[in-house]
């Protein structure tokens, strides 16, 4: 098979030489186009830190998928909770933005120069072993799930901070990355978690006394952004 391809390649080249002269040349050129000679001394992230940041891309995208599932569930005709659905779909796209922010940061620090395909592989979770949950009994249950999810993400960001501040392999403290995660990510995590906890509290009380009526009212408030 490879030999066949090789012969084919030569034929294409011959055709290139006698026919459209440069057709083959540019393929070779592009292959040989070496990257410029750039010093690498400015690339100072430590390996364990980089690895955790890379896996955070996947963590954020997994969160996005979980929120997608929630958005889809509450959009159903027999569930009919447009407020919840809107809230979760928006959360899904926010989580995707977080994944992109991490990528942007890594690019800024000179990372992701080879094999970016390992960052995200579709599907993120293998369907058989770990299918995405796609049904909830009510809005309160989904919000509770969301809060647990956010708490997990917060923990994973904290782990990155710890590793990047004091990596086991060296004494390099990555001040800038740590500061970025604290001011941009942790800030949003804690605010988001407080927001979810508050929502669960209000909804929980309303549902305790009024069940579906409480959920119905809360949903409309969510839809109009009043809670």
């Amino acid at each position: 098979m490879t030999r066949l391809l090789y012969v084919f390649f030569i034929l294409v080249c011959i055709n290139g030489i006698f026919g459209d002269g440069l057709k083959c040349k540019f393929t070779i050129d592009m292959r040989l186009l070496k990257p410029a000679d750039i010093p690498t001394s400015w690339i100072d992230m430590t390996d364990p830190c980089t690895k955790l940041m890379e896996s955070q891309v996947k963590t954020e995208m997994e969160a996005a998928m979980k929120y997608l599932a929630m958005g889809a569930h509450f959009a159903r005709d027999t569930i009919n909770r447009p407020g919840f659905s809107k809230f979760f779909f928006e959360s899904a796209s926010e989580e995707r933005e977080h994944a992109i922010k991490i990528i942007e940061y890594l690019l800024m620090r000179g990372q992701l120069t080879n094999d970016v395909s390992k960052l995200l592989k579709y599907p993120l979770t293998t369907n058989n072993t770990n299918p995405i949950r796609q049904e909830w009994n009510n809005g309160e249950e989904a919000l509770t799930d969301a809060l647990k999810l956010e708490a997990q993400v917060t923990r994973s960001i904290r782990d990155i901070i710890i590793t990047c501040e004091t990596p086991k392999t060296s004494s390099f403290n990555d001040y800038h990355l740590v500061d970025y995660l604290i001011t941009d990510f942790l800030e949003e995590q804690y605010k988001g978690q407080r927001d979810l906890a508050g929502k669960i509290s209000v909804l929980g009380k309303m549902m305790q006394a009024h069940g579906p009526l409480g959920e119905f009212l809360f949903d409309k408030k969510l839809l109009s952004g009043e809670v």
Partner: protein
Amino acid sequence: MLFFGVLSLLFLAVSGEYCYTDIESACSTNPKNGGLISNCNAKYGSIDTLQAELQAYANANIETSFEFLLMSTHFGNYEANREGFKGLYRKLSDKVWEEAIDLIKYIAHRGGRMDLNQLPRSKKPIKDSKVLELTELNSLAKALDSQKQLAEEALRIHAQAQHHTKQDAAVAHYFEEHFMESLSERVRRLAGYSNDLKNMLEERDASLSVFLFDEYLKNTL
């Protein structure tokens, strides 16, 4: 009592799948059916037969959105450093992501349910999924192929919706409005880019051609 039971069973059998009958029996003083109103849904047409296709297509869009994001990432690293290519693929990723969400909403709109665990129908044609060594021109070719594949898939589902024994013009219409135009536009644009860049690479200095083309892409974003 037994008589009433038999009567209502008969009634149900005759009445078929109606929400009204469900409600009548569920909310009567003597609720039957266990109070279930399973016919009070938004389903009509052939959404049931098309649902799996729609789910798979939504997931194919999510998969493609990931791919474009990775391509964008590749051109964003300091060695490749092509702002234009990076931006082009990022925009494509965003668009395809939004289209996936919109389709998920449409499935729910028609009384269906999304299944994120349903795998996309078609395998990616590019055996080597590594984005690693994609040159600028290769990436355009890959992007073009992948958008074409989504377009073909959309046409197939559209045809199925139209020629199904129980036609569903609503699904067909949704595909026309949300996928046909945007996909054909993107396919055409990517084909144009591929040809432009390929022709420019026949210059002596390929690096300058790519630089200029990247700058052009950046300005069109």
